[in-house]
């Protein structure tokens, strides 16, 4: 009856994978392909006093050397504030400063050794809680704090009246939660092969997860009309969000334009680990008011997102986090204040549920502590506060289809927990006076 349900459905590309015939970007080879290597900033923050690439340009096997002055429009990314090649003040260790295209890897690295560069090391700020303080070293000329809508330090969500909610509470529970950096480590590192084709289009074999985002973004960097910029995607050796940011496409493209030859730019594993975008750290403070019966009467959340040196996808992560940090609980009195701060580190990228799962870690641990405080089980507190169909979520959207309670019932069954009878009878159907009591 079904063509697919309950049956094995072979992947269309599975045979290619098991026979090693699938072509990844790192497998693309072109005749006369040049190798790109970049010079990266060795300091967390520095002023580039002078840079001289003349000797590198005449180094054997070198076809092009580029710095910021060779980039038509030196800004890219979803929020286009990221420099393709560093300006006078570098912002994170490993930031690209110059790039070489040469006949071989050895020739490219030799040329990089011949770039004469004078740095003045500047004091960086690494810790996000230091970075928000007055007088902290400035990561960016406009300051370390991201201003939402151009003027507010925080992205705010307000519902009800938290002061009233706290007065109603029998207990106040406060928690501070932090999450560290995390690298995606896809098995295939970032890689691009770029060339100019016969009709004069710049062709980019890209690992991008969003080819059209990358195309629009880079058309601006190259100052090329979209019809002169062709992206070729396909199978990639893992992304996990990391390939939503551009790591190699821009520089390979610039060098292909500069040399008229195919250029390959692949990161080493070390570069990928140290210098590509990551899931950056977060700090959460949650203050809850809870009644003896387990109902959360008020919640105040303050979030600090360490965005690294450029916005990249950090802003999007903060928006998602702010919307979902209060969890799948109906909390009538809520305040969320989310801040985003810049530090001298690699920028914040997307990574598997970015902004959401880090917040849920904090929220779920906090829920367990609430349950412990009032002496009920971790399951119970989730039942008591669960959303129902028809409830309004914390940003005011009416929830059309909720299954929190059914999910909890299933989880309890699967994990061998016995639930009290009354919770087995509950459902996520719209709440009426005759069903789930206590609210």
């Amino acid at each position, binding site marked *: 009856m079904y063509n697919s349900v309950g049956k094995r459905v072979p992947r269309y590309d599975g045979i290619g*994978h098991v026979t090693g015939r699938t072509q990844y970007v790192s497998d693309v080879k072109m005749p006369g392909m040049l190798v790109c290597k970049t010079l990266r900033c060795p300091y967390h923050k520095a002023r580039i006093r002078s840079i001289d690439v003349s000797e590198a340009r005449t180094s054997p096997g070198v076809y092009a050397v580029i710095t910021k002055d060779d980039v038509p429009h030196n800004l890219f990314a979803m929020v286009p504030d990221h420099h393709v090649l560093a300006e006078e003040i570098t912002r994170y260790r490993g930031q690209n400063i110059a790039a070489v295209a040469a006949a071989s890897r050895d020739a490219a690295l030799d040329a990089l050794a011949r770039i004469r560069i004078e740095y003045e090391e500047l004091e960086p700020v690494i810790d996000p809680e230091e970075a928000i303080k007055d007088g902290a070293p400035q990561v960016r000329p406009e300051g370390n704090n991201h201003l939402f809508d151009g003027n507010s330090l925080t992205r705010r969500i307000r519902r009800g009246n938290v002061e009233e909610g706290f007065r109603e509470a029998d207990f106040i529970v406060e928690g501070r939660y932090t999450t560290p950096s995390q690298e995606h480590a896809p098995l295939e590192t970032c890689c691009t092969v770029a060339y100019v084709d016969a009709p004069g289009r710049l062709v980019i074999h890209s690992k991008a997860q969003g080819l059209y985002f990358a195309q629009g973004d880079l058309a601006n960097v190259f100052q090329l009309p979209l019809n002169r910029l062709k992206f070729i995607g396909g199978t990639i050796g893992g992304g996990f969000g990391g390939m939503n940011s551009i790591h190699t496409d821009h520089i390979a493209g610039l060098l292909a334009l500069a040399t008229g030859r195919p250029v390959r730019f692949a990161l080493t594993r070390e570069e990928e680990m140290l210098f590509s975008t990551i899931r950056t750290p977060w700090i959460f403070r949650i203050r809850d008011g809870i009644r003896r019966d387990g109902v959360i009467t008020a919640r105040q959340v303050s979030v600090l997102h360490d965005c690294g040196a450029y916005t990249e996808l950090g802003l999007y992560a903060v928006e998602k986090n702010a919307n979902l940090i209060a969890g799948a609980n109906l909390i009538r009195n809520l305040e969320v204040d989310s801040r985003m701060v810049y530090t001298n580190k690699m920028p914040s990228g997307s990574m598997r549920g970015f902004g959401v799962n880090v917040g849920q870690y904090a929220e779920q641990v906090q829920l367990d502590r609430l349950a412990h405080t009032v002496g009920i089980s971790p399951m119970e507190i989730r039942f008591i506060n669960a959303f129902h169909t028809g409830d309004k979520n914390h940003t005011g959207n009416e929830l059309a289809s909720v299954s929190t309670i059914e999910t909890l019932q299933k989880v309890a069954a699967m994990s061998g927990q016995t639930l009290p009878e009354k919770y087995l009878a509950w459902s996520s159907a719209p709440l009426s006076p005759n069903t789930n009591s206590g609210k």
Partner: protein
Amino acid sequence: MSQILRFHLNGNPAEVMAGEAETLLDTLREGLGLTSPKCGCNRGDCGACTVILNGNAVKSCTVLALTVEGKSVWTVDGLVDGERAGEPEGGESPAPRSLSGHKLHPVQTAFHEYGAPQCGYCTPGMVMAAVAFLDRNPSPTEEEVKDALSGNLCRCGGYKKYVQAVMAAARGEFDPLPERSGRNV
């Protein structure tokens, strides 16, 4: 500088120039244009470059190319049988066991059937680790399979299916395992 390297690749004699400090992985990929062994870490951690050297699974990024002089190397490319498998017979659509009509190794068929590869970048290395292992131990336990694949990282998290698929290949769920072939010189 480089030297001439002569060895056996997938059962055929191969001759290539290899640099004095070059890894076997680079020689296979760059010198011979064989891109099935993948480079994930270039430091012996991830296993994406696993090939079979004189019958043993090895990480080709940790092997100096010139040391394989006179030895036998198999990559996933060498597993596809030279014989034509023939057209599938009518009726139930059989498990896909061919590439352009060439037979696959049962490990390859099992990986495909069990949907083990996701992005697929670790797959050629996983195949070679599994094939070398089954050549030695054709009726393993699940624990032994896990141990055999422990040097191969899959960032998509497909480990469970890879282990299930190796067990399926071992019990002959698709085609019987071939006799220890020329891979074990």
